[in-house]
């Protein structure tokens, strides 16, 4: 006879658990053709079991054509004091041409949410503090994001790029999609994430994608080198406030690519550095270059298992850690490229792929707008 040992009436060993990792998916149309959010929702929801309801999100590129020259700030507020303080701060530093609540719809499973606003802004440095006045626009925006996230209690900027946006929160992907009305946006690049937090809290700011300017990152795995990466980034003025490892990926890419001018492939070689034994086998020039890169950016190397998709206005990139400890599959149908944790998540939106393959460990798959697959 089975005893009712707790309210569910199950034996303690007869527990139901879905063994999970995070799930990620993304797509890009090389010609810049926009597709509705429905496809990426279907793709990420096919991998529902990879998450546990403690975080999901989407990034979409090309969604604000009417404000394509404005930085689109998406901000979440715990309370309205945070909103007041943030808006005063933004109005001092920017021409705020449009302010609105981020459109949401009532969703049964999303019972609580922060206050969610978006602002379309252009820098107006005249009234800015001296140390910000001469900054290029992108740096000016980065400083603004760090100041809001670090100094204003209860305010978090979760998207700050041009003509793109991130939408994220605590819930399963289907619920977050419904809540943020993802089906109503059209984009030429989409990424999506389904979170199963292991080491860090499941909160709205901790859901993926993580963004800065137009960089957006969705990640499955763990950045075990978080401490080293964080201290390294702090030397260059990055402030890590979002309580989770994936944040470093976003800032490392910004540091390596935007600030140091590395190309995407080289930046990926910094993050998923080849082993010394493999570097030693390379032809002279390549060996010297990679040795230099490892020495120069050693503290930017990411240790631990990861599959990552990162997007920017010009493309979508998928890559793995150097021993491939997390899944990633790439598919192509005509000018559409798809990248996901599972092939079935691609097949559900594009059943008859022209090609499908699994990238090699540490080898980025770079798909550029207007160019396609580049190597």
């Amino acid at each position, binding site marked *: 006879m089975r005893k009712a040992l707790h309210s569910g009436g199950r034996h303690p060993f007869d527990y139901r658990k879905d063994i999970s990792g995070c799930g990620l998916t993304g797509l890009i149309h090389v010609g810049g053709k926009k597709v509705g959010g429905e496809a990426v929702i279907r793709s990420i929801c*096919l*991998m529902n*079991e990879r998450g546990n309801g403690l975080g999901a999100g989407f990034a979409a590129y090309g969604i604000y054509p009417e404000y394509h020259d404005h930085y689109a700030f998406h901000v979440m507020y715990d309370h309205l004091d945070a909103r007041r303080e943030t808006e005063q701060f933004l109005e001092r530093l920017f021409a705020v041409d449009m302010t609105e609540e981020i459109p949401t719809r009532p969703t049964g499973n999303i019972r609580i949410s922060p206050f969610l606003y978006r602002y379309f802004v252009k820098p107006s440095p005249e009234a800015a503090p001296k140390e910000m006045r001469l900054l290029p626009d992108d740096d000016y925006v980065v400083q603004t994001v760090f100041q809001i996230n670090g100094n204003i209690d209860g305010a978090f900027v979760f998207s700050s790029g041009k003509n793109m946006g991130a939408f994220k929160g605590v819930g399963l992907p289907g619920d977050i999609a419904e809540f943020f009305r993802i089906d109503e946006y059209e984009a030429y690049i989409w990424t999506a994430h389904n979170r199963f937090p292991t080491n860090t809290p499941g909160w709205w700011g901790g859901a993926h994608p993580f963004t800065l300017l137009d960089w957006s990152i969705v990640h499955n795995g763990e950045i075990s080198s978080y401490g080293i990466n964080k201290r390294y980034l702090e030397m260059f003025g990055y402030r890590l406030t979002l309580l989770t490892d994936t944040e470093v990926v976003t800032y490392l890419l910004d540091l390596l690519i935007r600030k140091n001018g590395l190309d995407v492939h080289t930046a990926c070689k910094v993050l998923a550095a080849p082993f010394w034994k*493999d570097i030693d*086998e390379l032809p002279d020039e390549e060996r010297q270059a990679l040795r230099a890169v490892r020495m120069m950016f050693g503290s930017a190397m990411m240790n631990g298992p990861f599959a990552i998709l990162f997007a920017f206005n010009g493309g979508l990139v998928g890559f793995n850690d150097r*021993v*491939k400890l997390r*899944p990633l*599959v790439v598919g192509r149908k005509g000018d559409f490229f798809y990248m996901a944790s*599972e*092939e*079935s*998540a691609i*097949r*559900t939106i594009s059943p008859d792929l022209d090609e*499908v393959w*699994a990238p*090699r*460990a540490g080898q980025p798959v770079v798909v550029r707008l207007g160019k396609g697959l580049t190597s």
Partner: protein
Amino acid sequence: MTARGVFAIDAAGLHYRELNRRVREAVAAGRKDVLLTGVNGQYYIGDGIRAEVNITVEGVPGNDLGAFMDGPTIVVRSNAQDNVGNTMNRGKIVVHGRAGDVLGYGMRGGKLFVKGDVGYRVGIHMKGYRDQVPVLVVGGKAGDFFGEYMAGGVLVLLGLGPDDGRPPVGDYLGTGMHGGVMYIRGSVDPTVFGKEVGVVEITPADSQFLHECVREFCAEFSIDPGEVLTREFIKIVPVSLRPYGNLYAY
């Protein structure tokens, strides 16, 4: 009672729990041929089933296909994902496309044939059990850590497919291997060998096994076995039964 004919289940849109419940029900009712159509991503198909039954999968099955399986034959008409044949005990899985990472993890019996390429850590910790010898055959190419921590059983890699310059197998081949045997068709770059394995001569018994194994594999996929057997195989075995025996001993 044995039910005749093919019992079809339309898996389109079904959650894996519901799909697998229906499969188990069909098996319990004595069905011998079960056809799953419209499969896409459902996990755990055929898991833990102890019966003689043919399960045909149309569409891409989800992770952990045939885990803990004890007897059935599963034929996948397309690609498969990760963890196929996880800790499988008996039976056969045939994949007509490519498959993902970590195939045959801890496999202790039965056969797993994949026609195309496979990913990383294939055959990791395959082991066998008493007189059971699991056999995993890959028609295409394999990624890094092929046969990692292998403790028993047989891994065969044919490396067929277009000559695209990629080697048949990735780096860290047989790292931590301490039991079982691997056969790889063609040549392997010696720098990819893990520290725990070495190459030994093919014996007449090995050739006999390979002939039978390749013939069975080729019959599944209508490949000409004569063509496949024209190239030599190399045989890889562990050089130590306890490669890490001294690792933590001071």
